[in-house]
């Protein structure tokens, strides 16, 4: 295996980043255009556009955006506000200031409109890029990493090649004291009895089981499961079938905890993220699209995301690099430029799950060291944040 130490960006909370990004944040859709104009003039310079479109306050969106603005991969933050929206910009600004990061707030109404706001933003971002070059760089290793996994554009090959290969990679990373996070309780429906036996404590097992039961109720009320028509085209017939495949991403480690979006685990281990809202359905489906899950994992501290796909997703993300693992050898041939790893060769008998698991770990190290993933070099920086509602996790979710 290659050298497992590299230089990371040290943040004031002790966490270390693998990127040093300037986040340009719109605080309402009305400020989106200005924020985008500022961002696009810094193409390929690690300036990423993120934000929340809603005008009304929401505890969830507030928690997620606050968490991402002080994510270890973020070096500086520009907040773009129209001026009359509900987002608590002052508290966000104070939170970022406290973290020691350069931060600046532009009020579009106050500064005198679109053009002046864009000019001010460009000037500030230019200065910020120069300033954050001085962030201290320190030795970093696998035990400093938090890695998330999601699947998107799944087909029936996902559960046979890419997902279990990520499971093998997760086993290796957990063994080296990384934090690994998997998600989508809606894709564990039918597996709650298996899941609970892997919990470190009996009480955590009960929490895991309840989170899947909650997902089954929620999706029943929505009228169908976490299942897109492309999944069926790809040979998946039922949510149970998709679940079995999706679940394979978690590997064989014991579960150290259950978290909700924005909760940041502090100890090494494997964690399940419960992404299904609490209470009666209020804002529609649990996740509007794959990037909503990626955003939640980043809010929970993930430095990079292992994204498995069979049909062929192309998305990346703002803030944290996305590594694409393609399950389907036919898709891989068609969409090579978008794929970091060809797990489809498992299906062709050309590699074992363990070999591809090792390849994924090597890719994690390479990307952590600064090499761009495919989606990064193609300029993908998707970001989506909408309304959701969660109760805090119970004491049994993170056993000591």
């Amino acid at each position: 295996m290659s050298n497992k130490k590299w230089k990371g960006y040290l943040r004031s909370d002790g966490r270390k980043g693998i990127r040093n990004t300037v986040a340009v944040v719109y605080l309402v859709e009305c400020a989106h255009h200005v924020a985008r104009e500022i961002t696009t003039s810094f193409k390929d310079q690690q300036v990423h556009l993120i934000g929340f479109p809603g005008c009304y306050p929401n505890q969830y969106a507030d928690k997620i955006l606050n968490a991402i603005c002080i994510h270890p991969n973020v070096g500086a933050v520009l907040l773009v506000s129209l001026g009359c929206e509900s987002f608590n910009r002052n508290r966000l600004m104070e939170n970022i200031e406290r973290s020691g990061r350069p931060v600046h707030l532009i009020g579009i109404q106050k500064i005198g409109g679109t053009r002046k706001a864009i000019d001010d933003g460009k000037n500030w971002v230019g200065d910020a890029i120069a300033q954050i070059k001085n962030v201290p760089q320190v030795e970093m290793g696998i035990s400093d990493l938090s890695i998330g996994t999601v699947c998107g554009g799944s087909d029936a090959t996902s559960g046979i090649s890419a997902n279990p290969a990520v499971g093998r990679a997760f086993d290796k990373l957990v063994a080296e004291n990384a934090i690994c996070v998997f998600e989508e309780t809606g894709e564990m429906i039918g597996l709650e009895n298996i899941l609970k036996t892997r919990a470190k404590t009996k009480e955590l097992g009960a929490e895991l089981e309840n989170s899947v039961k909650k997902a089954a109720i929620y999706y029943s009320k929505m009228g169908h499961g976490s299942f897109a028509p492309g999944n069926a085209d790809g040979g998946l017939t039922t949510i149970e079938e998709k679940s079995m495949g999706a679940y394979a991403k978690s590997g064989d480690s014991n579960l150290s905890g259950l978290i909700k979006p924005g909760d940041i685990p502090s100890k090494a281990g494997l964690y399940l993220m419960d992404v299904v809202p609490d209470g009666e359905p209020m804002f529609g489906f649990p996740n509007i699209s794959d990037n909503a899950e990626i955003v939640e994992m980043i809010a929970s501290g993930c430095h990079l995301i292992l994204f498995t796909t069979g049909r062929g997703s192309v998305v990346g993300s703002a803030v944290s690099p996305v590594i694409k693992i393609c399950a389907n050898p036919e898709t891989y041939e068609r969409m090579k430029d978008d794929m970091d790893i060809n797990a489809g060769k498992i299906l062709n008998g050309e590699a074992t799950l363990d070999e591809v698991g090792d390849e994924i770990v090597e890719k994690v190290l390479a990307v952590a060291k600064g090499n761009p993933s495919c989606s990064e070099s193609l300029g993908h920086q998707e970001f989506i944040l909408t309304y959701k509602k969660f109760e805090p996790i119970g004491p049994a979710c993170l056993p000591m």
Partner: protein
Amino acid sequence: MEKLILLHPADNVFIVRKTIQANEKISVNGIPIIYVKEIALGHKIASRDINKGEEIIKYGVPIGSATEKIVAGAHIHLHNMKSDYIQTYTLEKEFGHEQ
């Protein structure tokens, strides 16, 4: 390369490992079958006769049940099996315009 794989000894389905072309002849458990339509990579083929209401087993666990009698070698998908949890969404079923 074998076209079909059995993922778990308890399974009653094979998985198509490489797309079966239209009019291709495949041997399923020693029975030669000509597939009229293409069956894509990842799809399921019955490894034995399955009765209506019987569970479909893949990865060694039930993934739903048969909605009609399925003969060995038949393609298994939305037309002959269903979830035992939550119905599957397809474009044809969109917004109540069920086929």
